[in-house]
C-alpha cells in the first residue's frame, strides 16, 4: 500500500531522511518512533507531498507520488486522513461544522453531509456534542472531533502525528482504542509517537527512525523500548552543543 524505495531528503546540509526503504501493507498499524529531529516528520510530510523527495520513489497503491503534479496533490490528500497533536480545530465552527468542513472541500452534497457527519460523530463517541464549539470540549473530546474529521472521507491511510501528546494517560488510552477500532475497519494507520507506554501496551509494528535513517523495523511483539545508554546521551549532548 505504501512503499518507500531508497528515498532521500536533505534540507541543505541537514539530513531529513537517508536511503529510506519501507513497505507498509493495507490495514497495518505502524508506530513511528525516534527522538525529536530524527526524521519522523519528514517521513509524514513526504507521504502528504508537503515536501518533495530529493531522490527515490514513494508508492501509494502503486502510484509514485513523487511524480504527482501540483494539481494532483489535493486528490492524494483527500485519500489520507491527518490527525494532529494540537487537534487543529477551527474555534469559530461547531463540532458539526468542523467535521462537515472536510466533506465540503470535496464538494459533497449537503444532504449527504447531513447524513454522514452524525454517523462519524457516533463512531468516535461524541454525537452528544454536535453543536458545541471546540473550546467547550475537553482535550480528549477535541481529539475525537479531529479524528472524525480525518476519517469522514473514508481515507485508506490515517496519519496521526502524536495524537496523544496533549492528553492525560487515561484519555490517551481511550483515543488509542478508538484508533484501533478504526484500524480494524481496514484503515492503515501510521502513528508518530513518543509515548513509550502506548507503544509497549499496543502490540503493533514499530519503525524506529534516528538521524534520518530507519534503524529498526520491528514486527508485532518484537519491539522492546531501549533506554538510551550513557554513551547515546553524551553523543546527543555533543550534537546539541553544535547549535548553541
Amino acid at each position, binding site marked *: 500500500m505504501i512503499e518507500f524505495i531508497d528515498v532521500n531528503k536533505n534540507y541543505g546540509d541537514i539530513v531529513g531522511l537517508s536511503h529510506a526503504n519501507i513497505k507498509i501493507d493495507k490495514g497495518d498499524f505502524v508506530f513511528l518512533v525516534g527522538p525529536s529531529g530524527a526524521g519522523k516528520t519528514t517521513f509524514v510530510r513526504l507521504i502528504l507531498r508537503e515536501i518533495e523527495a530529493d531522490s527515490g520513489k514513494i508508492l501509494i497503491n502503486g502510484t509514485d507520488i513523487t511524480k504527482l503534479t501540483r494539481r494532483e496533490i*489535493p486528490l492524494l*490528500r483527500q485519500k489520507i486522513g491527518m490527525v494532529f497533536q494540537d487537534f*487543529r480545530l*477551527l474555534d469559530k465552527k461547531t463540532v458539526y461544522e468542523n467535521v462537515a468542513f472536510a466533506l465540503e472541500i470535496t464538494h459533497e452534497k449537503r444532504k449527504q453531509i447531513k447524513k454522514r457527519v452524525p454517523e462519524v460523530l457516533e463512531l468516535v463517541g461524541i454525537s452528544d456534542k454536535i453543536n458545541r464549539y471546540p473550546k467547550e470540549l475537553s482535550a480528549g473530546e477535541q481529539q475525537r472531533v479531529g479524528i472524525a474529521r480525518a476519517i469522514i*472521507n473514508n481515507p485508506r491511510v490515517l496519519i496521526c502525528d502524536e495524537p496523544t501528546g496533549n492528553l492525560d494517560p487515561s484519555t490517551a488510552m481511550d483515543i488509542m482504542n478508538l484508533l484501533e477500532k478504526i484500524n480494524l475497519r481496514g484503515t492503515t494507520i501510521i502513528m508518530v509517537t513518543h509515548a513509550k507506554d502506548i507503544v509497549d501496551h499496543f502490540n503493533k509494528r514499530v519503525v524506529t527512525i534516528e538521524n534520518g535513517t530507519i534503524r529498526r523495523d520491528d514486527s508485532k511483539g518484537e519491539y522492546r523500548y531501549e533506554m538510551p545508554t550513557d554513551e547515546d546521551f553524551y553523543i546527543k549532548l555533543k550534537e546539541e552543543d553544535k547549535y548553541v
Partner: protein
Amino acid sequence: MFSKIAYTLKQAFSQMGRNKGMNITSVVAITAMMLILGLFFVAFLNVDLFAKTIEKDYNVVEVFIADGADDAVKDAIKSKIEKIDGIEKIEYRSKEDAIKIMKKRWGDNAYLLDNIDKNSLPDSYMVFVKDQKVGNEVNSEISSVNGVDSIKYYQDTVSKLTKITHFIQVSAIVVMTFLIIVSTIIVANTIKLTVFNRSKEIEIMKYIGATDWFVRAPFLIEGIILGIISSAVATGLMHLIYSRLISLLGDDIMRILSVPVLSSSYLIPNLAIIFASLGIGIGTCGSIISIRRFLDR
C-alpha cells in the same frame, strides 16, 4: 456546480463579515481613489472635447473686408477664395451679424454694446479650412487682394492650446495609472489580512485536500465585491459632484469659452462601466497577489 458557487459565496460573505472594519476602510480608500481618478477622467474627457472643438471651430480664417467695399469687390474676394483647394465652406458675416454674435458672447454685459453709436465692426468672410496648410495659403493669397482690410488666422493659438491640452491629458493618464496601482495595493493588503486571519483554516484545508481554487475562490469573490461596492459608491458620488459642477459652471464655460461640456447623463453611465470594470480588475488582481504567496508556501 450550484453548490460549489453557493459555498464559495457563503464563505466570501462570512469572511467579509468577520473583517468588517478592514473592509470598510478599504472601500473608503478605494472609493476616494476612484473619485480622484474620476475627476481626472472627467477633466481628461472635457479637455479632449475642448481640444477637438477648438480645433474644428477655430480652423477658420477670418477675412475682414475694408469699410465701404461694394458688392462687386466682395464677390471678387469670394471668388478668389473659392479657387483655393481645401476650403470647406465660406460664410459671409455682415457687421450686423458680427455685433449680434459679440452681444451673445458678452451675455449679461451685452448692454455695454448698446451705447455704441456706430458699429465699427467690419464685414467679413469666415473661411473654414480643412487643415493648417490651407489656412496658411488663404492667408498669403488673399491678404493682397483689393478690398481686403486684414486677415485673422487662429491656428497659432489653436496649436498652443492643443499643446496645453495634450500636457493635461498626459498628466491625467500618469495620475490615473498611479491611482490604479495604489488601489490594487490597498485591496491586496486588506485581503492579505483576511488570509492571515484565516491561515490556520487554510492550512487545515490544504492538509485535508482542498484545491488551490477552493481556497482562492472566496478571497477572489471578496476582492471583487470590495471593488464593486467601491465603484458603486464612487459612481454615485461622482454623479452628485459632476451634476453640481455643471449646474454651477457649465453655462459660464459654454459662454466664455464657446465650447460645450460633457453632459452628466452621458458621462455617468460610461463612468459607471469604467469604475465597475476597474473595481473588478483591482479586486481580482489584489486578491490574486495576496493569496498567491500563501498558496505557494
